[in-house]
């Protein structure tokens, strides 16, 4: 730790001792009542505009009090994050730092004001098309290579990390930053796992004072996932299409309990390597041929296939990948290749907070006759416009699936 960092740590430790209860709670019972808030508002107006000499709350205290009254019923908020940790807050979060870009995207779906974010991961800064409003925000580095000095210097009141991804790296970040500034609150959310997605959105909505926005977003999310589930749940196990999923690394598939295995299942498919105990096994091409999948799904967007997505309008690369799979030795015997059911999908719409859009694409590919009315592209466009607040036209920009 550098000398500058140590100096910063000492001064922050001193400030941390100045923690307060609920602002404007005059009787100190940890509950801000309507009369207490009204008195605080009147005192503030009196002092600022009416020449009064009464001791008024600071503007920050008054705004925090208004937030707590409106969103937390005038009380402290106790929440449990996805790591199972319980935290009690007596102030709204005004200076948020995120190492987890997936949680930033989910927060944007909930209408988080960008000026409440003081630090983001380097991946956000490397994606100006999807995160234009955060270009210029402090760069925290990554979960694997954090910039501690930067993270401490922006004085966050909360730091968000992954709950189940890179757990040891996240634990190291938390430990180091806590030693620098004991006042920082740490929250662990994944924001991309189907099993915890809705609950995380609800919790974040409460935490950020965006309860109504969370309800609206989850209604949209539920509409999509429910439409898919309502159809595929009725398909008997023996009638489900068999699926071979491959990541951007050739022959690297998805095993039992992996995120992609879960998404195949949500879309009504049967993962041909779903019984493999390795989360992401490298499989033998012969094993794929012998299991003869009905559908092949190839994911691009990382590794040697780092193209496509929001910042790339060139769709030819997807076509090349699709053709290459069909040209693998003896793969023309596979039903999926023979029947033209090889699909390419970008990780942006299947691996992160947009997983439900990718799942809709999978379901449509698996059962085109059952999902004639489902339009994943329209779902995607609505998500971008209504919840991500991006002026981005999918008809003109981006490459996410092939064949489109």
């Amino acid at each position: 730790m550098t000398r500058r960092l140590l100096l910063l740590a000492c001064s922050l430790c001193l400030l941390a001792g100045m923690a307060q209860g609920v602002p404007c709670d005059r009787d100190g019972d940890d509950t801000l009542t309507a009369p207490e808030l009204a008195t605080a508002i009147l005192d503030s107006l009196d002092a600022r505009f009416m020449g009064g000499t009464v001791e008024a709350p600071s503007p920050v205290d008054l705004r925090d009090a208004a937030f707590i009254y409106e969103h937390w019923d005038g009380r402290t908020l106790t929440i449990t994050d996805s790591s199972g940790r319980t935290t009690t807050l007596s102030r709204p979060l005004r200076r948020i730092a995120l190492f987890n870009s997936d949680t930033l995207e989910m927060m944007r779906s909930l209408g988080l004001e960008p000026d409440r974010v003081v630090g983001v991961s380097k991946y956000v800064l490397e994606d100006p098309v999807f995160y234009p409003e955060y270009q210029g925000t402090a760069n925290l580095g990554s979960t694997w290579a954090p910039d501690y000095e930067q993270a401490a210097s922006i004085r966050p009141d909360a730091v968000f990390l992954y709950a189940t991804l890179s757990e040891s790296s996240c634990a190291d970040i938390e430990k180091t930053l806590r030693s620098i500034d004991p006042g920082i609150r740490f929250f662990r959310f994944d924001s991309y796992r189907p099993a915890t997605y809705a609950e995380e959105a609800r919790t974040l909505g409460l935490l950020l004072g965006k309860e109504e926005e969370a309800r609206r977003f989850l209604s949209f999310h539920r509409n999509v996932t429910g439409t898919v589930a309502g159809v595929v749940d009725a398909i008997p196990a023996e009638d489900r299409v068999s699926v071979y999923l491959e990541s951007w690394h050739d022959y690297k598939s998805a095993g039992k309990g992996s995120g992609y295995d879960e998404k195949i299942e949500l879309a009504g498919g049967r993962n041909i390597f779903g019984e493999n105990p390795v989360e992401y096994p490298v499989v033998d091409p012969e094993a794929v041929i012998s299991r003869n999948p009905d559908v092949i799904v190839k994911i691009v967007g990382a590794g040697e296939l780092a193209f496509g997505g929001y910042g790339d309008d060139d769709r030819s690369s997807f076509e090349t990948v699709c053709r290459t799979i069909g040209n693998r030795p003896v793969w023309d015997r596979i039903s999926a290749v023979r029947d033209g059911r090889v699909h390419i999908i970008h990780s942006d719409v299947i691996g992160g907070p947009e997983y439900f859009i990718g799942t809709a694409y999978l379901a449509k590919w698996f059962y085109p006759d059952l999902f004639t009315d489902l339009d994943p592209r329209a779902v995607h466009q609505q998500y971008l416009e209504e919840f991500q607040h991006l002026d981005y036209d999918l008809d003109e920009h981006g490459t996410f699936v092939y064949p489109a």
Partner: protein
Amino acid sequence: MLPKRAVLLCILVFVLAAPAAAGSIERIVTPSGNGLDITLTLTDIPVGGIVETLPDGCTWTEADHPENRTRVSGQQVAFAVIGEETIRYRVQGPPDVAEAFAGTWEDLLTGESGTVGAGEPRNPGPGAATAPGTPGFGCAAAIAALAAAYRWRCGR
């Protein structure tokens, strides 16, 4: 940066910020007997504050707003807003000052502020004047404060 990315960045730099509901307050002044009835109609200001400056010649009478959310000092009246959508108050004074009321508001959740201005009379009913709220609390507050200071200096 690849040229196509640069073009995209230019296209997408116009991000639509999460649209927060913009607050406003409309005032309707209606002559009644030997005084005036004032109705403030609040839109999208769940928690906030209002300072109304009464015209010269007007004296405060009463409000339907809770007493512990109202404070009167000279020609100025402060209202604490906690969930109310309408505030009615009454003053004694001549009917021809309907357009001379001045007021400012602020939304404590969004930080927005604005003016409850006199002027721009509309036609909400016989003998009534109305003015919509507009943004710019700092400016409005300064004008209100100047008006109050002027009255004070003039001994009014």
